[in-house]
């Protein structure tokens, strides 16, 4: 026993002198992790923890307050039944069809308009420094401000229509915001107005990152401007498309305040999006289980769209 302890002690003392160095090094290694730990913990609890909590609640019979006794999937059954009630449209049917219309148009138009504006601004025109912030400025406004401003502008008794009538164009007629079948398109208009400048800025940054030599080489090979953009520039902007798509997709699914401020739900609730449905059922109608179930479905929708897209894009990059 004694023999064996001796070398141990020696090695221990040798270790301790080394440890003072390595402790410092190890601390330095750990520092980023230590600093990140609180925010990581917060994300685990407040994002993923609450996602699990919401999923749990959607299988209970919670009404005004959370109720922790598990029941069957009654909330999902109701949503499923409402999904197919189109005459008269159930609130859930309206919400999901509106999300389809709004999502496709909002993302599509923002991307197209943003790209077009960026290409035009990239033509080394004069006053770019002044034009760029003008397009970008709407993004600095909150959705509430955008919503209220467009509400007044589109109101036939107050804004555009009234003004044009006053100027003598009395046959002009634009009452989409009061029309149950058109109101969702006014939400698209306001949303596009707000976000397309931001998308433009993203594309502009992407365009500036493209090597001028490639463009010159292509021009020397006799490529026309249209060919240049279609075959070279736009394919090279693919990472920007990815970022813009992800930003816009999640913005369209969580759009809530824009609908409320612009239409206060629209005539007969015809402008609802799933987030409005979720808030309405959870907090106003005291049907927390149904609200949670709709939130889970929103999460699944966004996962179903974004995850495969991310996967294919990132996989290709890795190759």
């Amino acid at each position, binding site marked *: 026993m004694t023999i064996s302890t001796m070398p141990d002690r020696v090695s221990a003392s040798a270790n301790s002198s080394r440890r003072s160095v390595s402790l410092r090094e190890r601390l330095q290694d750990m520092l980023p992790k230590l600093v990140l730990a609180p925010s990581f913990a917060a994300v685990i609890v407040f994002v993923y923890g609450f996602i699990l909590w919401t999923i749990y609640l959607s299988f209970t019979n919670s*009404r*005004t*307050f959370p109720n922790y006794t598990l029941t069957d999937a009654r909330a999902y059954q*109701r949503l499923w039944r409402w999904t197919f009630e189109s005459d*008269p*449209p159930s*609130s859930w049917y309206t919400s999901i069809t509106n999300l389809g219309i709004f999502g496709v148009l909002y993302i599509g138009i923002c991307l197209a308009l943003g790209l077009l504006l960026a290409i035009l601004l990239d033509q080394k025109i004069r006053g770019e420094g002044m034009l760029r912030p003008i397009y970008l400025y709407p993004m600095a406004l909150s959705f509430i401000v955008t919503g209220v401003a467009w509400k007044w502008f589109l*109101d*036939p*008794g107050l804004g555009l229509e009234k003004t044009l009538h006053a100027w003598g164009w009395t046959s002009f007629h634009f*009452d989409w*915001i*009061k029309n*149950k079948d058109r109101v969702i398109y006014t939400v698209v208009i306001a949303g596009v107005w707000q976000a397309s400048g931001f998308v433009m800025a993203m594309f502009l940054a992407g365009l500036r990152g493209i090597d001028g030599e490639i463009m010159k080489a292509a021009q020397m090979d006799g490529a026309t401007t249209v060919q240049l953009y279609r075959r070279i520039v736009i394919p090279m902007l693919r990472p920007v498309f990815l970022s813009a798509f992800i930003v816009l997709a999640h913005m369209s699914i969580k759009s809530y305040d824009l609908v409320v401020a612009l*239409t*206060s*739900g*629209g*005539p*007969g*609730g*015809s402008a609802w999006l799933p987030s409005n449905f979720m808030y*309405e059922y959870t*907090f*106003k*109608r*005291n*049907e927390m289980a149904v609200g949670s179930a709709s939130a889970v479905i929103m999460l699944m929708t966004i996962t179903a769209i974004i995850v495969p897209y991310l996967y294919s894009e990132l996989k290709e990059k890795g190759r």
Partner: protein
Amino acid sequence: MKTIAKALAGSLMASTLLAGAALAQTKEVQMLHWWTSGGEAAALNVLKGDLAKEGFAWKDVPVAGGGGDAAMTALKAMVAAGNYPTASQMLGYTVLDYAAAGVMGDLTETAKKEGWDKAVPAPLQKFSVYKGKWVAAPVNVHSVNWLWINKAVMDKIGGTEPKTFDDLIALLDKAKAAGVIPLALGGQSWQEATMFDSIVLSTGGAEFYKKAFNDLDEASLKSPTMKKAFDNLGRLKAYVDPNYSGRDWNLATAMVIKGDALVQVMGDWAKGEFVAAKKEPGKDFLCYRFPGTDGTVIYNSDMFGMFNVPADRRAAQAALATATLSKSFQSAFNVVKGSVPARTDVPDTAFDACGKKGIADLKSASEKGTLFGSLAQGYGAPPAVANAYKDVVTKFVHDQIKTSDQAVIELVKAINDAK
């Protein structure tokens, strides 16, 4: 080390501060409410003054937003955190929900001393008494079945008070012929449903209203009478201006005040708008009961729900409850708010003509048993059902439900689904 010491000292200081705050709370009334607009805030100041006289401080927790949705979300968070306010402004079934969750206090002692059992109409007690215990103090009674008419326009078209629904249609026709917007309506679901409450009462009578909208009797809900009520709603819809959808209620009231429109069907909070515009009842505007509903009152009521606070804060709570239902406050507050007192023994001397009629109507309706909760305002059934009802009405008004036959079927389906 220094920073840790500092942090420790800071947290120590914070905890002593908290202890100090707890001490102060015993003499303090913490009040959550959404009465932030000018008139309402002024009305609350009366209560604040009354309490100050008795040595209680007022700690305001205002959460703005007309319908109180934001305030209710804030309240949920406070209660979940165990941080109960002394009292909170609450509506109808919310009080009962919180009482069922066991977080409400007990005001029975105060109620006995002040004689609330007798003074407060029985239908209101359904929402302020839970299992024999008083848990809330009603502040006022609003009634919903009113017509608000611009007198100048009325004189111009030579109209008289409509006594039946057909009279009302004839009156609206006259206004239309004179080139005035006949009916000022805000096309939001709660406003449409509030109007429909009156139409159902007018079409089917008091007994029918109670059976359909308070007892949720399925036979009444799908009866031909309900179908006729939807037909009547369809007839009224023809008299609104094309731009009505989504309009706020006070803008609709402003149309009547300015004489752009003849009449609005709205609860008595509309009177507050007339009074704020310096209009006088009888001279500038007229208040009639919705035709065919005289003698019956469809009500909603603001309540101060009292929470189960620790024993040392109960004296302040009792003082608040006593002051809330004192005759002087009931009179002073309701004159400003446009509603009528929640107890029927308050003198009506300070009220204008419409207020006097409102007080008399409430008293007689309470005695005759014709005082019913408004379904649109959440006093007829729990929020899930009330909102399902609003869905059907607004979808009918905005042509998503196309016929009254379909509307009746949808109404029964939606209410059963939400029950």
